[in-house]
C-alpha cells in the first residue's frame, strides 16, 4: 500500500516509498536518514521535529509525508551549505543556547522562521515565539539571547546587502539560507 512521493528536501528532489499514514518526521528520519530532526513527543507539543516547509516553521510530526509532496522542505542539515553555519546556528553556539542539543534543531528552525517575520524582536516576543518549542535543559535564557544575537547579525548582514533571509538558489519561497560563516571558527 506504499506509494511513491517526491519530496524536495534541502534543495534535492528525493523519491521515497511511503505508507499513506507515514508522518513526515518519520520519513525524514527513517527513509532519508536526516536524523537531525528529532521526536520529543506524540502530541505535537514539543517542537523538536520542527522543519521549514516553504520557509515556514512546521512541526513535522503534524504532517503526513504525502501532504507535502512538491513543497520545499528544509531540515537542520540543509539550513546552511555544508561546512558553513547559519547565523542562527552560530549564535546558539556563541551564546550557549543549547546543552544536550536535543531540542536545538527544532528550536533553530522556529527561530529562523520567526526572524523572517520579525527581524528585530524584543525578548518578550522571542519568548512567545518559541512557546511551542520545549527545552528542558537551558531554562531558555541563553536561547533567547542567541536568537536576539542572531537577529542583530542578520540585520547587519541585510543592511550590508548580504543575503540572510532572502532566497539563495532557485527557490522562490522565503528561504532561510544565510550568509555563510565558516564552521569551526575559533573557540
Amino acid at each position, binding site marked *: 500500500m506504499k506509494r511513491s512521493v517526491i519530496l524536495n528536501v534541502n534543495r534535492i528532489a528525493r523519491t521515497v516509498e511511503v505508507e499513506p499514514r507515514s508522518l513526515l518526521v518519520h520519513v525524514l528520519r527513517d527513509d532519508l536518514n536526516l536524523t537531525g530532526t528529532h521526536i520529543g513527543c*506524540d*502530541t505535537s507539543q514539543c517542537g523538536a521535529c520542527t522543519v521549514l516547509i516553504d520557509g515556514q516553521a512546521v512541526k513535522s510530526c503534524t504532517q503526513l509525508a504525502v501532504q507535502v509532496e512538491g513543497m520545499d522542505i528544509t531540515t537542520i542539515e540543509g539550513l546552511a551549505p555544508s561546512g558553513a553555519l547559519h547565523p542562527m546556528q552560530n549564535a546558539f553556539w556563541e551564546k550557549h543556547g543549547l546543552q544536550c542539543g536535543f531540542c536545538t534543531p527544532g528550536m533553530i528552525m522556529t527561530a529562523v522562521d520567526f526572524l523572517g517575520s520579525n527581524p528585530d524582536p524584543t525578548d518578550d516576543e522571542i519568548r512567545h515565539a518559541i512557546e511551542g518549542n*520545549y*527545552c528542558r535543559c537551558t531554562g531558555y535564557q541563553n536561547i533567547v539571547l542567541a536568537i536576539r544575537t542572531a537577529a542583530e547579525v542578520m540585520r547587519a548582514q541585510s543592511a550590508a546587502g548580504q543575503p540572510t533571509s532572502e532566497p539563495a538558489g532557485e527557490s522562490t519561497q522565503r528561504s532561510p539560507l544565510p550568509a555563510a560563516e565558516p564552521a569551526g571558527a575559533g573557540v
Partner: protein
Amino acid sequence: MTTLFGSGIKRREDPRLITGTATYTDDIKLPGLTYAAILRSPYAHARITRVDVSAARAAPGVIAVYTGADIKDKVAPVPCAWNVPNCDLKIPAHPLLAHDKVRYVGDGVALVIAETRAQARDAIDLMDVDYDVLEGNVDPEKMTRAGAPQLHDDVPNNLAFTWVVAGGDANKAFDGAEVTVKERIVQQRVIPTAMECRAAVASYNKAMGQLTLWVTSQNPHIHRFLCSVMLQIPEHKIRVISPEVGGGFGSKIPAYPDEALVSFAAMDLGRPVKWAEDRSENFKTTIHGRDHIEYVELCGTKDGQITGLRTTVYAGMGAYASTAGPGIPTILHGLIYPGPYTIPNVLGTIRGVYTAGAPIDAYRGAGRPEASYLLERLMDVYARKIGMDPFELRRKNFIAKDKFPYTTCTGLTYDSGDYNIAMDKALTMIDVPAFRQEQAEAKKQGRRLGLGMVSYIEICGLGPSQVAGAVGFGGGLYDSAIVRVYPTGVVRVYIGAKPHGQGEETTFAQIVADEFGYPVENIEVLSGDTDNTAQGWGTYGSRSTAVCGSAVKIAAQRVKEKAKKIAAHLMEANEADLEWNDGKYSVRGSPDQAKTFAEVALMANLAWNMPAGVEPGLEATAFFDPSNFVYPFGTHICTVEVDEATGLVTVLRYIAVDDCGPLINPMIVEGQVHGGIVQGLGEALWEIAVYDESGQLLTGSMMDYAIPKASQIPHLETAHTHTPSPVNPLGIKGVGEAGTISSAACLVNAVVDALSDYGITHIDKPLTPSRVWAAIQSARQHGNGSANGNGAAIGTNGAVKENGR
C-alpha cells in the same frame, strides 16, 4: 600564558549538535535492524489471567513475540542497586515482563519484534490479555493503611523500609521548646521529561559471544553491570555505548527492563533490535521523582535559635525498587536535614512505600531538593511566627565560616562554606526594603506582591567510595580518566563520566589544555563507551567535574611529569633545572634551549632516545576517589505577583547566588544554574504527575503534564561567590542540581509571603491558579492557615485542567 580555567570558551560539543549531525540512540541504524514494541498494562494493579499473542505472532513483519512466561526462566529480574542498611529494606522481584501480576500502568506484559517500527506497533494491537483487575493506589500514605491493596505478597503493608535519622535528642528539644511550627507538606510526583525519550539498540556477535548495547544512559558502566545481571552473561561480554544523550535529569541513571529485553531478543534472534519509547510511554514507565507526604516540625527559641527538627515522611517508591530508589529519600535526603544551619537535634522517620505507580528514582537533586524545601518552608513559618525577618533568621542560624570542616548532628562533615557571603551578595542585587515598600503600596491598590528567599546547601560530588559502601550503594563513587598523547601531540581524554548536556567535553579539555599549555583544539574528550575506560560511575549528583574532572587533572599531571623527564633527557639537562613557560620546557638560564609539549610527545611516542628506565609512550590513567562529598551552597531570592481573582502567580524577578567553588567555564555554569532554576520553578508552579484513585496516569502526555515554556519564565539574575573545596585538586563543588534544590522553596515562600496576612502558612506545590485561588478562598472563609492543596485539588479531570494549557 593565560589559563583556560575560568574562561567561558564556546563548547566543543556544539558543532555537531547545531548542525543535526550528532547521533542519539534512536538515530542508529544497523544492517538487518529489527524493531521492538512493548505491550504495556492498562491497569495499575491486576492479575494476568490469560495472554493470547497468537494473532500478533502471525501479523505481517512480526519476527518474534515474547511474553513474561516465555522469558522468566531465561533472564533475571531488574536489580535494585541501593541496599540501604539498617532499615529492613524489602526489595521485591521486578521481572522484565510481568507474568503473574501487573503493578503499575505501563508495566511491560509482552515484547514484539518486527521488521519495521510500524509493524511492531500494529502487532501490539493484536494482543489479547485478560486481567483480573485489583484495586490500585498511588498515595504513599494511604498504601500503608489497613485495608490498602497489597502490591507484593512479600512486602506487608507495602512498606519497603523504615529508615531513621537521629542526631542529638529531638524529642527532648521539642518537649521544652519555646516555639514549635509544623506543617503537612506534599512534595508531588514529578516527571523528569528529558526531551529525548529513552531508547536502546542491541546487536549480538554470536561468534564472539559479544553484545553491544547502545542505550540512553547517564552511566554506561553501571548499565553494563546491571545488564550483565539481568541477562546473566559476564560483564566483559557486554559493551555499552551511550552515544549523544538528550538530557537525563536522573531518569537515565536506572536500569530498566527495556534495554535488557532488547538485548535478550537480539541474542535470541541473532539480529539487531531497536526500541525507542514514545512520550506517553516515557511518562508512564520512565522513573518519576519526589513523591513525599511529609509531617514536619521545627522548634526553637522566641528569638530565633533553632533547636530541633522532626519529620515523618511517606516516600513513594512506585511499584518496584528502582536502581537508586531506596537511597534517595534516606541517605540523600535525611542526612542533609540540618541544611546550612546549626540544628543540634534532628529526628527523621522515613517510610518507603510501594505504590501502584511508575517507579520513583533520582530526579535532579534527588532527595536534597525535598530536604531543602521542607526546611526552608519551615524556616519561613518560624520566622513569621516569631516576627523575625527571614534573612535575619537564617543568618542567626548559619554555621559560621570558621567552623569548617563542620560535622552535623546527622554525621555529615561539610567541607567548606561561607554562607553569609552568598546572602550578602544576593542582597546587593535586590533592594529588599524598597521592595517591601512597593509591596505595601501595591497592596493598597489591591495587588499582591511577595518576596521569597532560601539559603541552601547540597551534598554533591558523589564519592567517596568508602561511604558509598557504608550506605549500601552497590557501586563505587570514584571516577577514572585516561589521557593519551598521540605522536603528533594531539590528545585524547577518555572519561568514566557521561556528560549529556553538561559540557564536559569542553571543561575537561580546558583542564588538560592548561596542564599542557595547549589550545583546546588539540584535545578531544570522549565518553560513553565502556570499552574505552575500565570503569567509571557516570554523570549524576553534580559529581562529574568534582570527581571525574579531578581524575582528568591527575592523569594530565602524570603525563606532564613523564614529559618533563623526557624533555630533560632530550636537552641533556637536569630535570630540576627545567622551567615550564608558555607551553615549553626550557632550561633555566638558557631560554633558547626549549622543547614544546608536542615535541616531547613525538619523542616519547617514537622512543628513539628515552631516559633510562622510562617506558615509551605518553599516557596515563588516573582513578580519583574524593575524601568527602562537596557541599555547594547559596542564597536565592525571588519576587512574585499573585492575582487574587484568578490565583495566577507571575514570577517577577529571580536572583540566584550560588557558590560552587571556582568556575572552570562560567558560561557553562550559568547554563546549569538557569536550567536548574527553571526545572524547580516548573515543579513549584505547574508540574505534577496526576494519577486517579485507580492508578490511571491522567497526565500521560505533554498536553497534560506542563513543563515550563519560555514565555512563563522571567530573565534570571545570577551571580557567584567562590569558596573552594579542600576535597579535590580543582577545588570544585558541583552545580548541576543547585538551581533545582533551591528554586521550588524560593517560589513557594514568595507566594506565601504575598498571602501571609490571610494567615496562610503553606500551600502545596505546584501552585497552579486553582490551588492558589482555593487557598485564598479557604482562608477567607475559615481563616484556614495551611492550605493544603492536595486532597481536594487533585481530582480527576479538574487536575488535568489545573495544569493549565
